[in-house]
């Protein structure tokens, strides 16, 4: 009896992620949602620029590799071309909340019927650990070597809070993948976001608090502790908007 196997939506290839990186978990959650909803054959993924740039090799569905920050615009085009396709973007914090802020906000404003998976690990990973739009105050990175100084570089962007004020957005939830309970909740949120798209309900974004042991300079287990102790207090988990929550009726 098989009790555990790789989701079918994930390709049988070796991932390039660092040891302890949580991208693998998030990939798996996305793939499980696709499997469970039976939509692999009509799903199109949009990969970002960042650590998950090779996501196009990891998912078995059709994939487009977008320019940095532009995934929601590319997704808009793909979705408008074939509205029956299920279209998701998979983006990091630099991609989504810095260079792609306009694309993020406006695809939400249009209530574009797409699903955005937003992996927030508070750092630019691929380029070697620079300050991200979500880097915490005081956090040391390669480009904030004395700690993020809010007096000179300002404060982190809280994406779910920001988008909760965008009338068009349908479903926004922040989750984390630092422990089993949170991973299960994250999986449920991602699946719900895809289901909403299937039901034509519009724009959803799931922000996944993730760890980056390599660039945080921590072991994988310490990184998860750091996430819990530092990121979750700053970025509280929960549903920030759900127009179809009980009693919401899409309003």
């Amino acid at each position, binding site marked *: 009896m098989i009790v555990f196997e790789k989701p079918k939506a994930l390709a049988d290839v070796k991932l390039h992620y660092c040891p302890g990186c949580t991208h693998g978990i998030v990939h798996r959650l996305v793939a499980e949602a696709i499997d469970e909803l039976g939509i692999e054959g009509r799903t*199109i993924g949009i990969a970002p620029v960042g650590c998950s740039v090779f996501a196009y090799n990891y998912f078995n569905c059709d994939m487009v590799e977008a320019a940095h920050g532009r995934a929601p615009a590319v997704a808009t085009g793909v979705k408008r071309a074939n509205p029956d396709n299920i279209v998701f973007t998979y983006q990091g914090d630099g991609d989504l909340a810095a260079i792609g802020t306009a694309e993020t906000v406006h695809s939400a404003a249009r209530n574009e019927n797409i699903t955005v998976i937003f992996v927030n690990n508070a750092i630019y990973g691929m380029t070697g650990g620079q300050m991200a739009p979500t880097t915490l105050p005081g956090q040391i990175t390669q480009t904030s070597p004395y700690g993020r100084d809010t007096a000179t570089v300002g404060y982190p962007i809280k994406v779910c809070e920001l988008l909760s004020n965008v009338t068009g957005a349908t479903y926004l939830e922040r989750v984390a993948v630092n422990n089993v309970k949170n991973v299960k909740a994250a999986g449920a949120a991602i699946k719900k976001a895809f289901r909403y798209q299937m039901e034509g309900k519009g724009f959803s974004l799931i922000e996944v608090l993730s760890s980056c042991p390599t660039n945080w300079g921590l072991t994988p287990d310490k990184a998860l502790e750091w996430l819990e102790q530092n990121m979750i207090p700053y970025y509280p988990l929960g549903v920030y908007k759900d127009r179809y929550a009980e009693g919401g009726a899409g309003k």
Partner: protein
Amino acid sequence: MADKVLMKGNEALAEAAIMAGCRHYFGYPITPQTEVAAYLAKRMPKVGGTFLQAESEIAAINMVIGVASAGKRVMTSSSSPGISLKSEGLSYLAGCDLPALVVNVQRGGPGLGGIQPSQSDYFHATRGAGHGDFHMLVLAPASVQEMASLVFKGFDLADKYRMTAMILADGTMGQMMEPVSLDMGEVKQYDKSWAVTGTKGARPHNIVNSLSLLPEELEQWNLKRYEKYAEIEKNEVMYDSFMAEDADVIVVSFGVGARVARNAIVEARAKGIKAGLIRPITLWPFPKQALKAAAAHAKAFVSVELSMGQMIEDIELSIRCFRPVLLCRRVGGMIPTPEEVLAKIEEADKTGGNEA
């Protein structure tokens, strides 16, 4: 001429796009091409298409990438400053080998520049539309009829070669009205099995991508793309000529410049100067052979441009500097007058072959 209607260039262009099967348009307002967007905002919903005003030029070109990836005909239009913003996307379109149609109704620059006609994006279109080694098919209409027919042709070439076709127009062509026939003929269909439409569980996944971290592989991608470009240079050059066969002085110009030059050539002939016009319709591929052949009998060339002198470099390259090439230019939104072109023709006729 009963089948002809009077239309603005921008509107004829937009209608031709619909006739070419384009059902997706993404744009952002900018003078002097806003009529394209306004026209399509009205028309697209009526033909079941998508008109979307994007949050930026950058978003618009990336939406174009999305639709092109999905294998459907798609267009965006803008004017010079907006085209600069689209440059990133133009490079990605090339790197991903995606077909799309991009319209640049040029205005004077650099920077915010002005809003009057210009051709100063010639280098951008033919050389530097974005980072990396690539070309776009660049089509330069010189009438409202061509604003329509070159859009139709551009979509076809874009699909045929899986690359961007750019309509490089100017404010005059966009704003002008002339009689136009919208009898465009059949839309040819091309294989798009590479597109992302969902695997339906029936094939391996398609990937639309411009990234390769393996230099050996990326080199091959580039070489292959340039083989395609060589085919295009062989097969797709388009130009028009007017009294050029026996000409001593060949004027080379495109768009509104060519229209003005035509007047000057008629006047020059009336004065007994054997002048003629070669009008590139494709700026890339450039009509190198036609110019080289003309250099055998012409003693001098005149490049008429609404720029500081950009196309003149292609003329000199084409004829291997075998003959002198004089420049007649106006910039900043100014258009050369027939008198100015005539003066250059006269100068070329006198000094031809003996450049001071």
